[in-house]
């Protein structure tokens, strides 16, 4: 209520005050008249004696003014004055905080965009990913058959809609050269699931979703701008792909980037097509939108029931299937989550170091201002008021730091995006009000962290104490606190540096590891192909063979091959196989990595043949449903042979891939090849079966070994492909080395950023050490001068200060190592080829910190030793 009273009595207050003051002057005038002055003279003297009325009025009004606003303004003013008065100090603090808050805000902006924010769709928390899995066979095939998807849609009670999609790269042949178009084939209800409507035009109508209906396509905003110059006339125009012409019926908004950020178009899959009726086909990556207020668990339970009913109805195909429902965001963001939280934790440590540094600076500063504070106390200021004033100064510094920090964050954010490459949702990172708000919150926290301790310290002595104190003599308690702050900085820096060191060593180990294949001089590319081609497997195999042969004749090309996944790039395609013949250890599950490669793969990748002979590719039957595959050839790696067939010759054994109803043909082991790090350079080779088929899908990776630098061949190869396949587009041309690098973008991001944080942390800690020691050298100049005058050796003084600084650094290192143990435990999962307690790294870190700390201590110590006793004594 106090403030309201203050507001409402404002007007009468002025009048009351006027009468009160007028009364005083009247009385004075009267007294003067009584002394014998004329009335005019008496009044003049009274007014003179009374003094400045306006000033009194203002001061009295100040008493009633809303205290918050009033004192905030005054504190702000004094804080700005404080900043102006000591520019070097202010610049140091602002720069430290700008770096701390800026880096923190930048990482937070990434964390916010990728993890905290919902996906950029309306009510995105209702979106879930649905997988069909057969728990018995551990198959990675989780796509859903079209009929089953329709069954789920019909029978569930928890979803607004369920839709599926798959992507393929088509060639658009309207132009001179065929051009790749990334096409998502989607089921009905696709747009309903996303809750997004085309920005222009319309979605598919039921006619277009029917088998035999008109072919229609919705294009992405990017494609529209790139190919139609954002002209609305694009609606109704045609795209020519795979012998069909599609009418453009809609254009999606720019924000709609699903399933991938470079999707060009969406087309409708007819669910009633005769080829879509098998319950065995697994086509669709499936996404559903939950009804409002339905949880993922409820949806899971509901769909489990639905699938159980289907299992009774179709025991052969659906009996063993289970459904797995998970939030879509989890599947998109995936592993990056850990990385980002880790980085955020690290950058927050950096901010803490910055705060500690600033707190130490403010503490030293407060000592110098002891006198000023004492005067304020003697003038009747309350402790709260002084503390608030000191905090206001810290706040203004932090706010200035945050303002510069936002600029830093802008730059850092761009650097982050560049480093993050193709991590999910990176394109959504931006600086907006949320980040500004976050920086403000940071500012407040920083103010409290940095400012509170020095402010409380500085105001702790009471009036008589500080009046009596000669500030040069009382440094002991304060020095302990300041050294403690420095120690904290050093130990946090040690922890960060240890983490960075381990990541760097791990990264280095990654470069040194022998992958088991030769990655240099390999060009990789794609040639567009549609899933429709799998209807005639023989033609597909022949087409790919023809292409490989043609590429092989190009001068400068040494070998060519295809593979479903590029070597050395994590693919996670582990499945359980079964042996057809007797296993050496019956009952043991055979978990192997399956890879689908052409027979020329081993020669091209220079993976050595250890036993047996190279495989041959089978000639596929023209109708895959009719059987007649005979057996396939497979190669196994050394790990496989050692793990599952020790002591036996693996040649001639047959292995079987798991399958639902459609049993794939068994594979006959033809030979053993060397171990290669197929799952990624950071994964030790696992037992692997290579299935020798050149057409695992219509658009495999083409691997071309060249004599020269791979990219120099790109145009020649592209022309050659155009010669033999004029209707197909070539895209995604990239040396294998680069692809291997891209697979580690996450690791690289962590390593680069943590190294940067660590270097900054060490610099800050050294700055703190240097600043604190310099301060004490200054404070103790008189003592040093006296000691020198009394005959102390300069070397002794130097050693004393040096050891003081180093002592703190050593203690910091000890605590830091303990911290590092905890910190690197978090890191353990991100390391390869180096243990989290790697002695070399830890010793290196400690040595580095001690060296730098010695350097930082040496300067002030040397300054102390150079003190001129005469000058100091004269100053007294």
């Amino acid at each position, binding site marked *: 209520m106090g403030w309201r009273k203050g507001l409402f009595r404002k007007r009468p207050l002025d009048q*009351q*005050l006027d*009468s*009160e*003051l007028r*009364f*005083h002057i*009247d*009385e*004075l005038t*009267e007294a003067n008249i009584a002394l014998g002055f004329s009335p005019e003279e008496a009044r003049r003297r009274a007014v003179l004696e*009374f*003094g*400045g009325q306006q*000033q*009194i009025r203002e*001061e*009295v009004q*100040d*008493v*009633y003014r809303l205290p918050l606003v009033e004192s905030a303004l005054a504190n702000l003013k004094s804080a700005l004055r404080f900043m102006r008065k000591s520019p070097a100090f202010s610049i140091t603090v602002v720069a430290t905080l700008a770096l701390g808050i800026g880096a923190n805000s930048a990482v937070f902006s990434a964390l916010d965009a990728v993890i905290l924010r919902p996906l950029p769709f309306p009510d995105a928390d209702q979106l879930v990913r649905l997988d069909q899995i057969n728990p018995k066979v551990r198959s990675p095939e989780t796509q859903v058959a079209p009929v089953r998807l329709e069954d789920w849609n019909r029978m569930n009670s928890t979803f607004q809609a369920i839709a599926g999609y798959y992507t393929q790269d088509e060639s658009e042949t309207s132009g001179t050269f065929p051009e790749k178009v990334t096409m998502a084939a989607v089921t009905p209800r696709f747009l309903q699931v996303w809750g997004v409507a085309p920005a222009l035009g319309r979605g598919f109508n039921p006619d277009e979703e029917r088998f035999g209906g008109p072919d229609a396509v919705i294009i992405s905003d990017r494609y529209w701008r790139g190919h139609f110059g954002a002209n609305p006339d694009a609606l109704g125009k045609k795209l020519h792909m795979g012998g069909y012409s599609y009418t453009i019926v809609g254009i999606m908004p720019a924000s709609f980037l699903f399933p991938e950020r470079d999707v060009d178009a969406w087309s409708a899959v007819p669910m009633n097509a005769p080829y879509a009726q098998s319950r065995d086909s697994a086509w669709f990556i499936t996404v559903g939108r939950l009804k409002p207020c339905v949880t993922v668990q409820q949806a899971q339970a509901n769909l489990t029931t639905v699938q159980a009913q289907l299992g009774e109805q179709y025991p052969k195909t659906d009996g063993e299937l289970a459904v797995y429902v998970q939030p879509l965001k989890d599947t998109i963001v995936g592993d990056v989550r850990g990385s980002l939280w880790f980085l955020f934790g690290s950058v927050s440590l950096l901010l803490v170091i910055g705060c500690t540094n600033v707190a130490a600076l403010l503490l030293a500063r407060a000592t110098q201002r002891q006198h000023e504070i004492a005067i304020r106390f*003697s*003038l*009747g200021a309350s402790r709260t008021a002084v503390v608030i004033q000191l905090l206001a100064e810290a706040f203004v510094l932090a706010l200035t730091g945050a303002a510069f920090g936002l600029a830093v964050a802008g730059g850092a954010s761009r650097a982050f995006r560049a480093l993050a490459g193709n991590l999910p949702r990176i394109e959504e990172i931006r600086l907006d009000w949320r980040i500004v708000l976050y920086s403000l919150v940071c500012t407040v926290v920083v103010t409290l962290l940095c400012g509170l301790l020095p402010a409380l310290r500085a105001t702790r002595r009471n009036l*008589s104490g500080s009046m009596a104190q000669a500030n040069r003599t009382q440094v002991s308690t304060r020095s302990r606190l300041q050294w403690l702050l420095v120690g904290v900085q050093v130990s946090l820096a040690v922890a960060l540096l240890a983490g960075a060191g381990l990541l760097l060593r791990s990264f280095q180990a990654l470069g040194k590891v022998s992958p088991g294949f030769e990655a240099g001089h390999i060009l990789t590319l794609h040639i567009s192909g549609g899933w429709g081609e799998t209807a005639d497997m023989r033609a597909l195999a022949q087409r790919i063979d023809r292409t490989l042969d043609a590429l092989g004749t190009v001068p400068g090309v040494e070998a060519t091959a295809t593979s479903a996944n590029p070597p050395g790039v994590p693919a996670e395609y582990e499945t359980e196989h079964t042996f057809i013949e007797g296993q050496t250890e019956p009952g043991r599950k055979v978990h192997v990595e399956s890879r689908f490669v052409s027979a020329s793969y081993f020669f091209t990748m220079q993976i050595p043949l250890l036993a047996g002979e190279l495989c041959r590719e089978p000639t596929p039957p023209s109708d895959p449903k009719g059987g007649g595959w005979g057996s396939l050839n497979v190669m196994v790696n050394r790990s496989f042979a050692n793990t599952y067939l020790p002591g036996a010759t693996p040649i001639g054994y047959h292995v079987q891939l798991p399958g639902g109803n459609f049993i794939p043909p068994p594979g006959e082991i033809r030979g053993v090849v060397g171990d290669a790090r197929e799952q990624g350079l950071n994964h030790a080779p696992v037992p692997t079966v290579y299935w020798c088929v050149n057409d695992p899908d219509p658009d495999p990776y083409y691997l071309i070994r060249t004599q020269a630098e791979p990219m120099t061949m790109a145009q020649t190869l592209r022309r050659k492909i155009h010669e033999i396949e004029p209707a197909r587009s070539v895209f995604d041309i990239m040396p294998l080395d680069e692809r291997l690098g891209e697979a580690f973008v996450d690791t690289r991001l962590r390593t680069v950023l943590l190294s940067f944080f660590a270097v900054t942390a060490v610099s800050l800690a050294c700055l703190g050490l240097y600043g604190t020691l310099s301060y004490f050298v200054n404070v103790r100049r008189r003592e040093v001068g006296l000691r020198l005058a009394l005959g102390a050796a300069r070397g002794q003084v130097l050693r004393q200060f040096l050891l003081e600084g180093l002592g703190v650094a050593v203690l910091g290192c000890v605590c830091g190592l303990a911290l590092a143990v905890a910190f690197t435990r978090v890191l353990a999962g991100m390391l390869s080829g180096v243990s989290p307690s790697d002695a070399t790294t830890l010793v290196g870190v400690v040595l580095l910190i001690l060296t730098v700390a010695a350097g930082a201590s040496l300067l002030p110590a040397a300054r102390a030793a150079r003190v001129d006793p005469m000058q100091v004594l004269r100053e007294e």
Partner: protein
Amino acid sequence: MPTEKSDLLQGTLDMLILKIVALGPVHGYGISLRIRQISKEMLRVQQGSLYPALHRLEKRGWLESDWGESDNGRQAKFYRLSAKGRRQLGKEESNWHRLAGAVSQILETAS
């Protein structure tokens, strides 16, 4: 004019005001007169400090005020001590005695 006039420190002014108001309702002019009279012209209170101090004390709830007629029939604002103010005065007085005692002790023994 006597040269040995002292200006008051702010903290002490508050205490003196409370003390004078404790004697009975009094207006600002009265307070300034009393301080001068009682201190035998040694202490002089600037009006510039007196009125802000009065209002500050009133705001803290140590003083209460109402308008009344002065001896010569003018409207004046009279200040009274509140219960809270009385407690505060007690505290400040004993503080002051302690401090003054300590200071004079030092002055006497150290000379």
